[in-house]
């Protein structure tokens, strides 16, 4: 079916506003010029004046804008983050690792739990192993509780893996498998997510915008529904039988527990939709601007007298050499090797980074390809919609691949231009 037939008749004015060029977008000089070239401005529908649909500046998604690629391994731990304790020699070790794709999002709540356990033995100084977002927030929470903290790590943010995340508030992203995590994990997760959410609220509106909200649009040529992943009985293997999850239904689904505080997607009326697609939703998405946020945290750590020692560890017994008697272990994926924790599963994920475009301050997702405008660039992702949470599971190749990023950029550019092909068109062209 041609795309025009997919668009209901009441959308005809919307379609008319989106010829196959960018003039339909009312922002920027190009948009202004376009508007001036069309004299009967007042005759246009209200949405064209930006009363209902915001006038968005189109994103520049041409290949020349791609200035960086990042790839890293999310430490999915089957039972969820390890927050247990153990003794090594005479040291108390409090674990805080294995947060999957939710490390930034859960960091404050997870640090509260870990630091609380460390505080139970009344230390005056502690060591933190690792300086990703989990180690750094643990260190700062301990300092805020009055402790002297030394971070021992091979490197500091921004050279640690955390800096290679995409950086949105996604507190349940590949954070646990439902079976191994057990029914009690949901309560702990909710506690950490709620705690973190409140802490992030204290970081809004600061210079450099370490944390901010922006509008996030999902657009489609089909009605938008939340995808569900029922158990596929044809898949007989599972984490329990093979050491790796084998289908989406194995992952813990937790987001609904905090939907009372986290903005949910709302469907847009045609006159509210800034994009030339028949269907769209909008939500308010919180994201982290890594450079400003990392600097803010490092500054606080050192301002509170924090000490850094560059060091790597190759066996748990090496911790016995440290002068501190209480140690928070926050090495993320490296815990798989250092602590021999084989329940930590690599989940490969990559992002492309475009030249920053602060005037285009929103996110767009189409067929699970996304562009999110952040302070340090527009972050591009291309997540195969048919794989869902299984994307990258078990993959430990940490080098980025350019082609999927360019594909996502080209597809999203087609949305802005109004030239994207519908699945029906694509099928027709192929026949």
């Amino acid at each position, binding site marked *: 079916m041609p795309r025009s037939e997919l668009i209901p008749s009441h959308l005809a004015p919307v379609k008319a506003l989106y010829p196959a060029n960018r003039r339909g977008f009312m922002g920027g000089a190009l948009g202004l010029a376009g508007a001036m070239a069309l004299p009967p401005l007042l005759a246009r529908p209200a949405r064209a004046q930006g009363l209902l649909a915001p006038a968005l500046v189109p994103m520049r998604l041409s290949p020349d804008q791609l200035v960086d690629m990042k790839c890293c391994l999310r430490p999915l731990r089957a039972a969820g983050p390890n927050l*247990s*304790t*153990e003794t090594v020699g*005479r040291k*108390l070790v*409090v674990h805080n690792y294995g947060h999957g794709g939710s490390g930034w999002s859960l960091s404050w709540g997870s640090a*509260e*739990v870990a*630091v*609380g*356990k*460390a*505080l*139970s*033995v*009344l*230390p*005056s*100084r502690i060591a933190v192993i690792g300086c990703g977002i989990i180690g750094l927030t643990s260190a700062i929470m301990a300092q805020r*509780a009055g402790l002297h903290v030394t971070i021992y790590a091979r490197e500091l943010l921004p050279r640690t893996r955390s800096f290679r995340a995409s950086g949105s508030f996604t507190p349940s992203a590949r954070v646990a498998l439902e079976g191994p995590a057990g029914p009690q994990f949901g*309560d702990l997760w909710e*506690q950490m997510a*709620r*705690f973190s959410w*409140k*802490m992030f609220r204290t970081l809004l509106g600061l210079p450099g915008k370490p944390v901010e909200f922006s509008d996030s649009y999902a657009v489609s040529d089909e009605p938008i529904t939340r995808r569900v992943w029922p158990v596929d009985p044809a898949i007989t293997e599972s984490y329990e039988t093979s050491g790796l999850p084998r289908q989406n239904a194995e992952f813990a689904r937790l987001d609904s527990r905090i939907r009372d505080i986290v903005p949910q997607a709302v469907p847009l009326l045609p006159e509210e939709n800034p994009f030339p697609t028949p269907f769209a939703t909008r939500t308010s998405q919180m994201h982290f601007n890594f450079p400003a946020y990392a600097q803010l945290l490092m500054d606080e750590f050192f301002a509170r007298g924090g000490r850094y020692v560059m060091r790597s560890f190759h066996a748990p017994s090496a911790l016995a050499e440290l002068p501190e*008697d*209480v140690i928070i272990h926050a090495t993320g994926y490296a815990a798989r090797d250092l602590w021999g924790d084989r329940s930590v599963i690599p989940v490969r994920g990559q992002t492309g980074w475009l030249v920053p475009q602060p005037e285009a301050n929103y996110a767009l997702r189409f067929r699970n390809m996304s562009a999110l405008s952040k302070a340090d660039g527009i972050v591009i992702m291309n997540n195969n919609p048919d794989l869902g949470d299984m994307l990258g599971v078990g993959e430990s190749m940490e080098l980025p691949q350019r082609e999927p990023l360019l594909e996502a950029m080209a597809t999203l550019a087609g949305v802005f231009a109004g030239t994207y092909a519908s699945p029906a068109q694509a099928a027709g062209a192929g026949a």
Partner: protein
Amino acid sequence: MTRPGARKVAMFLGASLLASAGAGGVAAQGRGTAAGMYTSAQADAGGRLYAIHCAMCHGAGLQGTVEVPPLTGRFVANWGGRPLGELFHYLSRAMPQHAPGALSAADNANILAFLLRTNGAPVGGRELPSEATQLERIRFDAIQPAP
């Protein structure tokens, strides 16, 4: 010079060693919560009171929030290493926040027992007293978190 923190941790480790050495060793250690200072029945009763009077703010899991102090973890750091009587006095006079001093001394002692148990302090054979003067002679010891 001994660092205060090192002394506290040593105290915790010492208490653990003594606890494993048997009751005689514990008695020699003095009266601290590491020696088992409340009964299970008392903590059970305290748990029921907690659910009614405390959980609405501090959470069913004692976890607190950003705004409400948790009653585990940093709670031990706030009250540990000092006489249990201090915490008892505070409970008696300032809690529950919406009706300070509304609970009886026995109820507060039971809640205290529940808090000790939930934080991992060992249970003992004798009830935690509900008289402030006796509680002032019991030290709130450091606690090794559960594995």
